[in-house]
């Protein structure tokens, strides 16, 4: 095959040793770095979740003091959002987009390296706050003033780590857009692009639009604390609610940043294992674009209880409900793709089907909370915790698991252990529900979030939830074991890997050559 010869031609340029990873401009190396970083952060953030669940196993204060408990909830969220989920998707984008559109590499390879290497420094700065005077930030990941302004020495480092993470995300997003717009192989028109590429194009646009807004918001926090400004100080004519508006103008698109690439992954996997074309390709593209557009108009549904004119409550309520329409289109299309398909249930497919079902549960609880009058009861309870964990864990994280099982044989040339993969799936799916489903009931019964202690009537469901949490956490060690085992060896994967797989990445060898397509393939 021609790809084999190009591989040889580039052999002398294939750098070796540790410094290869530091200086690399190769999209596969950088993708690998992103994924390893994300996995590391997933376990660090996960360990913090274990502390939270241990403390909540029983009512009363057992293991940690309330301040540290609040640090754990804050840091767990920041690390999982900015350290695990987002970098994992960027890692997948790095690995897959050039291979899917027939490009030699990302469009701006040096900037690609910079986007990644800012991350470990930002992560170090953020985790370092745990050891500072006054403790790690404990005011919640949303950093609402005036509470967050009481953070100790960690405060400026919290702000700067958010700045660094933002710079990294913006550069990564610019690189992805430029790659998609400028590096497609001849014949790869926009409406022929795989949906993972489409969803990432739209996600990257969201990132560039909102990460600077977050940077602005935290800059205002910094100047309010250290330079005497009054953005969030009512005595000076400012308003603490202003922060919430700016934050959620970032924050709502941000939640779609964490789910749109997952939609793309599932839209790639389900057709493969149903052995049918994706149902309604163009409606998927339009639905993704509609979700992205609406995401800019719904931010204040996070703030129904904070005080807003009635017209505001109504506008944000109806706008939020509209999002259910394009999301419903997507779920319908996935189910319709499976309809009468010749389905098999390998691990990526299992995770994808679980994604469709469990993400939909998270979507429905979101719809419940979109109703302003009803949200007054749910706000800041465990119901919201259950909701966003349903969309993020069996949503975003399951999609990442599915993507790793689906493309790992392509990346490494080795098949993973299907038996262990299925075991990982079943344990994860069972325990994620044991972990998060009871939290709906806790929330509806009135248990507030971000409190280390609770009234005794909540004890039963909390105990079940904690057991689910520990089991889910332990299960992920199995995932780590499967990964290491697959990278080190295993039965050889074919180039196509999966019988029903379609797309340019499957035309490359497994593992693919260092430079994906030195000669652009012709797409018909």
């Amino acid at each position: 095959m021609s790809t084999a010869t190009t591989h040889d031609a580039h052999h002398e340029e294939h750098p070796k040793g540790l410094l290869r990873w530091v200086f690399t401009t190769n999209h596969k190396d950088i993708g690998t770095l992103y994924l390893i970083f994300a996995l590391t952060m997933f376990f660090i953030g996960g360990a913090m979740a274990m502390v939270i669940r241990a403390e909540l196993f029983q009512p009363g204060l057992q293991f940690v003091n309330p301040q540290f408990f609040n640090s754990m909830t804050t840091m767990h969220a920041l690390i999982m959002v900015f350290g695990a989920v987002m970098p994992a998707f960027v890692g997948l984008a790095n690995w897959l987009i050039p291979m899917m559109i027939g490009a030699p590499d990302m469009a701006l390879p040096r900037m690609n390296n910079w986007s990644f290497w800012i991350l470990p420094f930002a992560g170090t700065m953020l985790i370092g706050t745990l050891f500072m005077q006054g403790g790690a930030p404990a005011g919640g990941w949303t950093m609402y003033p005036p509470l967050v302004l009481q953070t100790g020495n960690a405060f400026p480092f919290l702000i700067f780590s958010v700045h660094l993470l933002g710079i990294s995300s913006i550069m990564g997003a610019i690189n992805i857009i430029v790659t998609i717009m400028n590096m497609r192989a001849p014949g790869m028109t926009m409406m022929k692009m795989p949906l993972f590429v489409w969803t990432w194009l739209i996600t990257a646009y969201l990132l560039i639009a909102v990460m600077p807004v977050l940077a602005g918001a935290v800059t205002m926090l910094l100047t309010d604390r250290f330079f005497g400004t009054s953005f969030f100080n009512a005595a000076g004519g400012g308003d603490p609610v202003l922060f919430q508006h700016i934050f959620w103008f970032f924050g709502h698109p941000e939640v779609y940043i964490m789910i749109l690439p997952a939609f793309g992954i599932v839209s790639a996997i389900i057709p493969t294992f149903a052995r049918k074309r994706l149902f309604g390709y163009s409606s998927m593209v339009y639905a993704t674009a509609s979700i992205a557009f609406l995401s800019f108009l719904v931010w204040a549904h996070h703030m129904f209880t904070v005080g807003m004119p009635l017209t505001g409550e109504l506008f944000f309520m109806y706008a939020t409900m509209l999002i259910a329409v394009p999301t419903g289109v997507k779920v319908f299309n996935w189910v319709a793709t499976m309809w009468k398909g010749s389905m098999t249930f390998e691990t990526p497919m299992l995770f994808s089907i679980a994604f469709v079902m469990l993400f939909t549960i998270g979507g429905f609880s979101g719809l419940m909370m979109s109703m302003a009058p009803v949200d007054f009861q749910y706000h800041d309870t465990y119901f919201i915790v259950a909701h966003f964990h349903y969309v993020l864990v069996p949503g975003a994280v399951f999609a990442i698991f599915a993507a790793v099982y689906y493309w790992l044989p392509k990346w490494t040339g080795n098949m993973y252990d299907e038996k262990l993969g299925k075991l990982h799936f079943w344990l994860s799916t069972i325990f994620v529900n044991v972990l998060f489903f009871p939290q709906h009931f806790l929330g509806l019964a009135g248990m507030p979030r971000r409190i280390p202690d609770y009234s005794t009537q909540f004890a039963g469901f909390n105990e079940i939830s904690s057991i689910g949490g520990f089991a889910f956490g332990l299960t992920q060690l199995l995932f780590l074991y499967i990964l290491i085992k697959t990278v080190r060896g295993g039965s050889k994967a074919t180039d196509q890997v999966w019988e029903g797989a379609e797309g340019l990445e499957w035309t490359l060898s497994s593992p693919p050559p260092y430079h994906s397509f030195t000669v652009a393939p012709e797409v018909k």
Partner: protein
Amino acid sequence: MSSEANGGYYVPHGSVWPIIGAVGLFVMLHGFGDFLNGSDEGSTVMLAGFAILLFMVFGWFRTVINESEAGTYNMQVDKSFRWGMSWFIFSEVMFFAAFFGALWYARVLSVPWLGGGDPGTNELLWKGWEATWPTNGPGNVGGAFTLLDPWKIPALNTLLLLSSGVTITFAHWALKKGNRGALVLWMMATVILGATFLGFQIHEYGEAYSEHHNLTLGSGIYGSTFFMLTGFHGLHVTLGTIMLTVITLRCAKGHFTADRHFGFEAVAWYWHFVDVVWLGLFIFVYLL
């Protein structure tokens, strides 16, 4: 070298600059954080980080300029740079949008609420306070202040920046006609206009901080939005002027041809962006 260097899409093989940039950013911000927490070494560490960052900027741009001069970049690479710069400017627009948003929110919503538009807030917290704009809030934060006259230096500055937008366009026309002398002259005019703007702006800040005006960053919400918006704009003009200076030198060296001059255009775009932000500032911060 491989096929990429001649005709194909150029994919560099390894680069030392990004990691230096990452270290520089980390050291600089770490030092700044320590400084804000009152540590003595903070500012030194911050400056060291800034120096590393400068070293990176020089090195990275030197590499790219040399590659560009060696003809490494084909039209497709050129297009990547164009897309990249456009989206970078869009991200800058969104950064300013956050601060403009804060200004409008305060003026249209929160200040009127404090002044009785939301009866509960006014009654319970700041009874009797009437909303005005500009304001430093019911707490009179930062003490009484007076405004700068928009029709003096700010109006002049508007004229300067708008003229600089014209001169850089003349420079572009000269470049397209291959007239290097006119190109360099118009570029120098643009740099001088930018630098003069900055000089006036510094003078204006001095005036604001003087006892006569007592308008400071700490002057409530008005001072906050005024200085953060004009300050970040000023930083961008500073950066833009440095970029213009570099481009002027490259023009004088003959780096650009009539049909290939992305570096020039990128800076011109950036300069127009800074110009447009100023127009927004002049209207919403100074005039209205």
